[in-house]
């Protein structure tokens, strides 16, 4: 069996030996280097563009918006974002011109010879400025999207409570910071355009490319090259770069490469949405939530892009994994003149998770109830109903993860030890322990999967091996490996006899984007179904071939009654000779009874949730307010772990990314531009900052996932920031309602010089 085993990853050797070729490793005959000329202003109108007449422009290809054959937009949700600014600049770093030349030096030189004059307009740079509507930059009121989730009677619930507790929480931008920056090569072909590059979603790029040049499905070809991380940052943005490269390539009729350097990548591409989240919770003295009112405002940036979908996930997760009969969640996303915020691992959930968990800490503090006990009293269990009215029917590992995290971390013993230590005198280094409890819906929200109808397939090669056909991308998380494991076991052949087709839109069907913790649970399921169908077909064929009705396929061999009749490869070749290529394509269908109503925003938001609980131990230096995370113990229910080591890798990596979100990562803005666009001043935790991590994988199998698997990609991003903030609270008594918990911020809070907005 391959499932559940830590088999070698499919592309591992290639990566380890340096043989893997990333987009910037590829150079083509006659290729030009492209560059994007961007606005330094956050908001304004272009008055004029002039090109230095002393410079020889003949070897330079220049594109502006007039070179776009059709309409000027990036195909996403609202189609409101132009590929190139025609007149109205809506955010700093917005693309205006594209230039290309044979060398990078020449392109830089040309860039310095372009002068753009603007008429400056007053930019809207924060959620507060957007909400006060002094400047209107979108619609009538700067609001991109609104959601309302309502359940029960909030007024009644408030009356039932003994206490009303309010909190206001602020969460920042966060940069994805994949190792490999964004990059694309566009190649004009006789019939259309081929684009290769670093991306999560080849069919998003395919759609944008078709729209740009009015191409057919076949004329536009998109190929994913080896990709050095995505974290959501390569979900929607690659469509923009691909179209830019393609515009230049079309005009020059030569291949064009565009690679962003780190500074451009940080400055211009999408970030996690910052937000302000307010909670008003009614509780009984014994700790039961009787009503919860939550208001979410996210900053969408200058264009709609994926903001409505992020906002929706934020709203659905806003109450947290808790029971409450009376809920009212209002959510808004507003426009600002900043680069559009977009997809980032967690997709709205880490923002609200920090808020709901700190609200639980605040409730525990006010009621004098132990924070762990408060979670136990209110946690969702199997059979319970969520804020959207979804009854949790299966695979609910909530209690299991909480118990596992508490036991493995010795949470109780640590709490007591800290109390004793505290009582014995004031140390300048104080320890603290904190816990968080969280959940994450796997797959697209609501009716997303039903509409998407993800497709994937399997074909049997001439060598008699199984080849997986899917557009789900390998971005470091292990897609290729787990798909092969699923096929191997479902089909009954060896892991090494399964291979993966290149992620090329001319060869693989649209499996939907590689996002939303959906690759294993949703696409893995489709692949499992395809494997099942292949097995049925080839078994039937073999049964006839050998006149053996009871024949079965196991570990690559056809057997009957304990006797080996033939190898899989032999039968597969015979099948091909008689019937032609054996190829099966399957499509996703929502499990029976999973229903969602978009109008009332209620129902089964996700087919399944993954569950997590995390304990953080910190040491705070009470003179410098440095916070060291000593250890994180995390227990996560992800259903069956197809590849336990890769799953643990996802959990550890996501947790560390969340440590950065909670402690150090802060973008500094000046007039709508990011000032800290380097790794020396945008501070992510390195391996040396990584705490000890203990990971417990809980496997509550999901009946409609492949071998019981759910999603693991995003859940690990949700828990660390609140667990650390809770540990800091335990250590110092300082209640943190805004992340990151930098030493500076902590000192301010501790010294009370900064009035906490939630204490109003």
């Amino acid at each position, binding site marked *: 069996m391959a499932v559940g085993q830590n088999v070698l990853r499919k592309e591992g050797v290639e990566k380890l030996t340096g043989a893997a070729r990333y987009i910037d490793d590829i150079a083509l005959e006659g290729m030009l280097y492209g560059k994007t000329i961007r606005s330094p202003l956050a908001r304004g109108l272009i008055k004029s563009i002039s090109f230095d007449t002393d410079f020889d422009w003949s070897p330079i290809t220049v594109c502006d918006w007039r070179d776009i054959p059709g309409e000027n937009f990036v195909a996403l949700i609202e189609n409101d974002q132009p590929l190139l600014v025609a007149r109205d600049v809506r955010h700093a770093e917005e693309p205006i011109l594209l230039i290309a030349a044979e060398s990078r030096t020449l392109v830089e030189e040309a860039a310095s010879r372009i002068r753009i004059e603007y008429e400056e307009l007053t930019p809207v740079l924060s959620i507060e400025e957007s909400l006060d509507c002094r400047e209107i930059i979108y619609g009538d009121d700067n609001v991109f999207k609104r959601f309302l989730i309502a359940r029960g009677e909030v007024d009644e619930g408030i009356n039932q409570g003994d206490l009303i507790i309010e909190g206001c929480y602020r969460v920042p931008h966060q940069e994805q910071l994949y190792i490999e920056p964004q990059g694309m090569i566009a190649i004009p072909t006789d019939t259309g355009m081929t684009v290769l590059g670093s991306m999560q979603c080849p069919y998003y790029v395919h759609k944008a490319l078709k729209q740009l040049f009015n191409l057919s499905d076949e004329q536009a070809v998109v190929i994913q090259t080896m990709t050095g991380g995505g974290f959501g940052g390569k979900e929607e943005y690659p469509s923009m770069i691909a179209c830019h490269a393609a515009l230049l390539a079309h005009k020059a009729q030569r291949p064009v490469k565009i690679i962003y350097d780190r500074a451009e990548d940080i400055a211009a591409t999408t970030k996690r949405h910052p937000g302000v989240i307010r909670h008003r919770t009614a509780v009984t003295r014994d700790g039961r939530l009787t009503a919860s009112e939550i208001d979410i405002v996210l900053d969408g940036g200058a264009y709609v892009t994926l903001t409505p979908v992020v906002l929706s996930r934020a709203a659905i997760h806003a109450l947290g994994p808790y029971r409450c009969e009376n809920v009212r969640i209002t959510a808004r996303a507003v426009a600002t003149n900043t680069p559009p915020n977009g997809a980032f691992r967690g997709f709205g959930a880490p923002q609200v998770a920090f808020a709901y968990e700190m609200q639980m800490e605040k409730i525990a503090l006010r009621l004098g109830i132990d924070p762990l006990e408060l979670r136990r009293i209110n946690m969702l269990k199997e059979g319970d109903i969520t804020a959207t009215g979804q009854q949790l029917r299966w695979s609910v590992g909530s209690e299991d993860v909480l118990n596992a995290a508490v036991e493995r971390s010795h949470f109780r013993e640590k709490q007591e030890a800290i109390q004793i230590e505290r009582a014995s005198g004031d140390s300048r280094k104080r320890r603290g322990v904190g816990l968080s409890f969280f959940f994450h819906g796997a797959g697209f929200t609501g009716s997303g999967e039903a509409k998407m109808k993800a497709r994937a397939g399997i074909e049997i090669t001439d060598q008699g091996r199984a080849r997986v056909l899917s557009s789900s991308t390998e971005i470091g998380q292990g897609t290729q490996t787990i798909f092969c494991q699923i096929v191997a076991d479902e089909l009954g052949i060896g892991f090494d006899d399964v291979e993966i087709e290149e992620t090329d839109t001319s060869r693989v069907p649209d499996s939907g984007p590689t996002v939303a913790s959906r690759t294993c649970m949703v696409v893995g399921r489709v692949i499992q179904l395809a494997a099942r169908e292949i097995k049925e077909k080839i078994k039937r064929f073999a049964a006839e071939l050998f006149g053996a009705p009871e024949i079965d396929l196991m570990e690559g061999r056809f057997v009957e009654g304990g006797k080996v009749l033939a190898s899989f490869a032999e039968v597969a070749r015979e099948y091909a000779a008689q019937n032609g290529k054996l190829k099966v394509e399957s499509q996703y269908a929502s499990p029976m009874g999973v229903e969602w109503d978009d109008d009332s925003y209620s129902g089964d938001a996700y087919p399944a949730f993954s569950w997590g609980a995390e304990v953080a131990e910190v040491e705070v230096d009470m003179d410098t*307010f440095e916070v060291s995370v000593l250890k994180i113990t995390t227990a996560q229910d992800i259903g069956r772990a197809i590849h336990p080591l890769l799953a643990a890798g996802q959990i550890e990596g996501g947790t560390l990314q969340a440590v950065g979100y909670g402690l150090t990562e802060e973008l500094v803005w000046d007039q709508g531009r990011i*000032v800290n666009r380097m790794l020396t001043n945008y501070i992510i935790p390195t391996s040396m900052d990584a705490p000890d991590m203990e990971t417990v994988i809980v496997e509550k199998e999901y009946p409609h996932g492949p071998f019981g698997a759910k999603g693991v990609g995003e859940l690990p991003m949700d828990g660390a920031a609140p667990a650390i903030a809770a540990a800091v609270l335990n250590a110092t008594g300082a209640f943190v309602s805004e992340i990151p918990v930098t030493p500076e911020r902590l000192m301010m809070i501790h010294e009370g010089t900064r009035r906490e907005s939630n204490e109003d």
Partner: protein
Amino acid sequence: MRGFEYASPTTKEQAVSLLGSSDDDAMALAGGTDLLSLMKDDIVAPRRLVNLKDVAELRGIRLLPDGSLRIGALVTVQELLDNAIVKRGYASLIHAADGITSPQIRAMGTVGGDLCQRPRCWYYRAGFGLLAKDKDGAALVPEGDNRYHAILGNTGPAYFVNPSSLAPALIALGAKLHIFGSGGQVEMNLENFFAAPTSANEKEYRLKPNEIVTEIIVPSAGGWKNATYEVRQKESLDWPLAAASVALKMSGKTIESARVVLGHVAPVPWRSGEAQAYLAGKTISEQVAETAGTLAVARASAMSHNGYKIQLARVAVKRAIMKAAQGGQR
């Protein structure tokens, strides 16, 4: 990065003759860990790079007859850390070098380069100039994002902090610097090498475009307790938020004299006369260290966003003194 000419001399005389009258003409390349990123970001664009790495006489660490230590400007941070003499007698230097936590930078970065690296001020690194002014000539730092900027010596026009990790420790140890130029060799106290610029065409240290740092001479630290303490935001690949180096000449249990130098708090490594004067004649205790820390920041003033650095600097001085008292153990 723009194109440039590359020269690789083998003597310091050749090196100096290949340098020019401005950074636009030529710049000296040692480890390149700072210079190359400045060139990539188009903050500097020399027409020629003069590689110093083949100038053998700039290498090596050795004891001089008078007991002082000669450190060649090309000695890498890692060589410094691995040197037995440095390890034995110069704890504060080891602490400071140890704070340069990236193995790659330790392997390539040099002692001379550490002293001559340019400030990490993000306005400077984003192309607003060393004095960080907007297009109308107004200073950006005092009302801008100055969380990492100076809390001492910050009356302008320079508001950045000196980025050197080793300078505070070397100054506290009484180090001298040798500079070689067309006029031959000059010796100066390392402390005097640094000066806050008063105009846009000055640097934060006194080295002409056609001069190079050749070696650093550190007096014997016998009888001096010394240590460095850094406060940092993360454990690797970053500069400290504040640091302090102390050297205490001991007479039994009493401090005979003290040198206290703060790093990353002012446009120059900041010698604290107040703390030094106070420490002379005292016996080391937690209380004495605390008071010295408080005195070291007595004249500090916060800009809009860097008040917390005053606290960090105070703590760094206190802890450096306590660390020195404990024999400089890490």
